[in-house]
């Protein structure tokens, strides 16, 4: 019922996502000390959670 696809998409895609976020902050091209870049970080995180949430709710609605 799509849970495997969801896990794969947000697992493998998420791995790439979080590794690249970590890399960008570790290498200093962004810094959480900087107010604008801190906001960008939160937008990135919320975007990931938002897409994940929409897909979870979508699957749950179809199951009903």
């Amino acid at each position, binding site marked *: *019922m*799509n849970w*495997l*696809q*969801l896990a*794969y*998409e947000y697992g*493998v*895609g*998420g791995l*790439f*996502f979080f590794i*690249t*976020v970590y*890399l*960008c902050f570790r*290498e*200093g*091209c*962004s810094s959480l000390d*900087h*107010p*604008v*870049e801190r906001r*960008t970080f939160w*937008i*990135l995180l919320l*975007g*990931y959670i*938002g*897409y994940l949430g929409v*897909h979870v709710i*979508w*699957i749950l609605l*179809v199951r009903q």
Partner: protein
Amino acid sequence: MTEVHGTPLDYGIIFFYFLFVLGFGSIFGRYTRSTRDFFFSGQRFSWWLIAFSCIATVVGSYSFIKYSSRGFVYGLSSSMTYLNDWFVAPLFMLGWLPIIYFSRVSSIPEYFEKRFNRPARIMAIIFIMLYMVGYIGINFYTLGVALKAVLGDIGVESVRQAFHIPPEFYQSLGGHAFAWAVVIAIICAIYVTAGGQTAVIMTDLLQGFLLLIAGFALLFLGVYYLGGWERFWSGLPVTHRLPFSSFNSDPAFPHVGIFWQDLFGSTMAFYFVNQGLIMRFLACKSVKDGRKAVIAVILVLMPLAAIAVSSAGWIGRAMASFGIIPQDTDPKKIFVIVSELVTRPGIFGLILAALTAALMSTVDTLINAVSAIAVNDIWRPFVVKNRDDRYYLKWARIFSLFFALLGLCLVPLYASFKSIYEAHAAFTAASTPPLIVAVILGMTWKRYTPWAAFWTLLGGGMAVAISIKWPVLIYPFLHGIPTPGGFIYMRALYGLITSGAIAVIVTYLTRPKLDSELTGYIISTIARAKELFKGGPPNDREPGKKMLLTLCEAETEEGILDPKAMDAMKARPGDLIYVNDRRWWTGGLRSIHVKAGEPEARSGEILLSRSKIEESRLRPGEKVRVEKIF
């Protein structure tokens, strides 16, 4: 599929639309005075303008027909390819965008020379030019086929007869599909040649709006036709309501195959190696606006575009469930069938205009992008060096016309020889994974060497080409997808892994560049690149206010503001400031970047030199909006 659809009113609307786009795009010729204007629109535009124009470019020549077809067969999971871009957003927003913006590279091949060496640049030019010129031809071909399907031969047959073109010769060119491709090629070539990137962005803005409006109009009219949302939903089988297709059991549309082919093939190629998109984001007034544009595109506009391009297929599936159309309707025809059923005269014309908009907005971007590579990577560095900018602008226009014509010449080839069409698809599959690997390792891994980049492209490309001949090599990456469909989908993963392996092996066998030569081209040096771009330390911790000031002329090279305005903007002398038309909706069309000088102006004024005012197209005495960039 050659029958004529619609009414004279619909054809009138589409004819008017062609004329309007041609006139609207050509207006922006007066905003193009240099190659920087022609290729990057003077780096002046606001995020929302770039975001909408990007959506028109993303929705390509065959999107409405392709995704409606998938929506009909697989349901809501046709949206998968539009909803997975966020995974690449961090690397693009935090890494690639600031690198290309601050290092002032004008093309992907130029990045390859600066980050690696000249052989790597030449290899990148060959890969990108072959891919993009072929892609222009494919777009012309597919748009010709699409227009032929929905417009039939209205007018073109009489034109053929008027010019006494023999029917056999006409058919050998591709028939009506070629005729429609010629019409679109003429329109695009005229406005791209006149207005360059500004014309592309402005027409794509218009076309982006239109295709979203038309897609949603089709959805709402379809739901109304069916009798409401509940009836529409009940007409979709459960499998058609889910967000993802089967994981690996259906080789025609497997989730895991789409994930690798689309996300790590198409999407990454789109954001990291598509010259047209790179130029679009370089046209933003700042990196901050570029990031806002990416957020708007991926979080808001892509989901809307997914609905717009697929909706006809979803409505069609519900119609088939209720027996309105046959269950075995050809999926490729579903867009036209549903459009005709649910729309009225006039509205069908609007849908056709949206279809054409999707076609033109992709082709115009490609023509401008290929012209940029021809001028900046071939003509300027290798053929005729050290001439003034007007000379290169003239050649930019010549190349735009030339590549539009060349793309058109490929249409009869694609129409006659399916193998050429397939050869380009195979070449695209072979060239994109190595390019993606080279760009990503180039920006993230300091040790990655110039010769490793060269061999990543050449060796990676060859490895993928070999897999086309011997697909058995892809077996370890199949994820259980039945063959032969699985080979097509998982070739991207195979290409990424083989290219990555070559990159790592050659890197450890060859000598890297000195750290000092990498400034601005890898993510760990972005802060320094930003400083070099500005010519001093950035001042962007406090954004400050936007000020409404009166523009005055003075003999100064800098932008002179009054002390109170500087305080409110949290700006200091030497900061980069942006002077814009006070009306936000102009999007930066009349604007300029200047360095702030010592605050010596009278209260409420900003002083600029005559040449800067002329360049900005603002007028002395008018109110302008001024903001600090950094």
